[in-house]
């Protein structure tokens, strides 16, 4: 399923899409596949597979710990692509979330080609904005991949317009100014950012590639069913990462970790349906 189809399906069901993040290789190669599969089975519509990177500049302690564990465990870029292949085989729309240097080193076009052949839908790029993305924009178009860029509370309307014009699949709205990690409450500024973004997308309907129909997923700091329900009331998708990792990190053993991930996905799936 494509990312766009996943969002459309959720919309047709009168709910927000549930997007779950997990780094490849965490807690180990098979463990990540098992956990992502559990997330899909329990209600995630879209899976973001993180590419573990040595310098995760925008991540808080939880994802830093997971990524560190994955790298110490020896995960390689080839393993990330194999993980994508396994997760995409579940039928869920599967993206890769990555800092830019590993893709740059692999070769942008080669990465796009190999991601596509693994069944991946595209890339989320937290440290790459459209201005520096020339080779990626070309490769994504060449290989028919989604380009998910981020908008932030600090983004000007002009920047939101540039970013949404270059996005495909969905646009990732960062709910707060800060690094990844669960927070106790959804930032009060988040609805306004989604509203601004939606207005700009609508205004560009006639001129932008998205044709006015680019879904908006909201992430950063969301980790409970109640928060998912709150976000689902104003965004098209709810993105959760650190909370899944926390379940795996805190579990006494592998089976308990998987059960925890499944339980959280089910809780969030209720949330995106407005039942929390």
């Amino acid at each position: 399923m494509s990312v766009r189809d996943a969002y459309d399906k959720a919309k047709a069901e009168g709910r927000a899409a549930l997007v779950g993040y997990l780094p490849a290789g965490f807690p180990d190669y098979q463990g990540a596949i098992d956990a992502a599969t559990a997330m899909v089975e329990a209600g995630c519509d879209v899976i973001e597979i993180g590419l573990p990177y040595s310098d995760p500049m925008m991540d808080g302690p939880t994802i830093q710990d997971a990524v560190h564990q994955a790298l110490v465990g020896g995960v390689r870029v080839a393993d990330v692509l194999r993980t994508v292949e396994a997760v995409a085989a579940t039928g869920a729309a599967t993206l890769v979330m990555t800092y830019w240097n590993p893709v740059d080193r692999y070769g942008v076009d080669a990465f796009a080609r190999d991601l596509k052949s693994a069944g991946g839908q595209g890339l989320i790029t937290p440290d790459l904005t459209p201005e520096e993305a020339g080779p990626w924009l070309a490769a994504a178009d060449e290989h028919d991949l989604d380009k998910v860029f981020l908008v932030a509370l600090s983004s000007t309307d002009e920047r939101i317009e540039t970013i949404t014009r270059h996005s495909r699949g969905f646009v990732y709205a960062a709910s707060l100014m800060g690094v990844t990690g669960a927070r106790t409450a959804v930032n009060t500024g988040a609805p306004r950012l989604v509203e601004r973004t939606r207005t700009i997308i609508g205004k560009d309907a006639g001129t932008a590639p998205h044709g006015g129909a680019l879904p908006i997923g909201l992430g950063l700091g969301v980790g409970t069913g109640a928060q998912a329900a709150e976000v689902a009331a104003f965004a098209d998708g709810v993105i959760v990462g650190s909370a899944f990792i926390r379940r795996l990190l805190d579990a006494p053993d592998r089976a308990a970790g998987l059960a925890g991930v499944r339980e959280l996905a089910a809780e969030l799936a209720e949330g995106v349906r407005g039942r929390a």
Partner: protein
Amino acid sequence: MTIDSAPGSAMSASESATVPDATGHFGVFGGRFAPEALMAALDELDREFAAARKDPEFMAELNGLLKDYAGRPSILTEAKRFAEHAGGARILLKREDLNHTGSHKINNVLGQALLTKRMGKKRVIAETGAGQHGVATATAAALLGLECTVFMGEVDTQRQALNVARMRMLGAQVVPVRTGSRTLKDACNEAFRDWVATVDDTHYCVGSTMGPHPFPMMVRELQRIIGVEARQQVIDLTGELPDAVVACVGGGSNAIGAFHAFVDDASVRLCGFEAAGDGVDTGRHAATISGGRVGVIHGMRTYLLQDEDGQTVESHSISAGLDYPGVGPEHSWLHDSGRAEYRPVTDAEAMEAFSLLCRTEGIIPAIESAHALAGAIKVGKELGPEGTLVVCLSGRGDKDMHTAAEYFGLMPEGEGR
């Protein structure tokens, strides 16, 4: 001598001022690989710096501080006894070690601290390796009444404990960073993480010619005074341009500061010396241009120590200030364009030069600067007795006494390793 402020000054008329372009690119290098959340702040900084350097009041305040607080201009000292070990070439030391706080870092920090106030922000954060930039930032923050937090790798807080104490005495909060290699690159990561959450009231005072645009350009402009002064001083002294300008390169701010005024002087060799640790062929080094390949780190495209998956490789150097796996993008550009040459200096070569300067000139250099001195010995021997070298002595070595005493076995019985 002051920093140029007027448009059409020697600086903006020079060919070298055509880089970076408006979006911060030095050829293929530099740029802005940063999270969207920081874009508004980076744009604001770019605008404010452009406005400030045309504002006579701002420039008068900055030049006043450089003169009456930092102690500029720094002097040029001829190192005659040291030169006997460097092929007899004439060695002129640009004494950035005599600046207030003991290094060139104060030049950059005073400019950025004033900009912080101009932007209405009340807090500065900084990364630091050896602690020179952290101390300079803490100093400027104290002077201008700003809050200050300095991120420092835990390994570096141990090998530079004296500078941690200095920063704390100056009222700064020092945060030991315990992630990754626990050195300078990890301190940078942590500073960016803080900044993205605090950008409304906080300025990230980047310590070198690195990071996303406009930092590499802005820090160069603030450090450029080193070469502007040195160029005039060497002409006053010898009647002509030097044959070479020599500096150590970690992130590369003292080097770009020393080089920049000479870029259009085609006869002047620009020689950067990178920290080769145990040797470039051992894999335990920080010689980014000599031993790395082009990639993206900390917001910029530049030479980078990385493995075949694009993971950053940990750097190694006896010098905390050079222990960084990237390098400022303008150095990558000067390297690829052939205008400057970059070569490695091992720990052992640097420490030999460190000792030599102490014993021949009565000057204790920073271990970072000792890499430039080791380079000067090489270049001096290449040039011979007719040659004249300007060497950027970027900092003083008081902070390195513990490392040096251990290295040379000078610790009293029972206190060494």
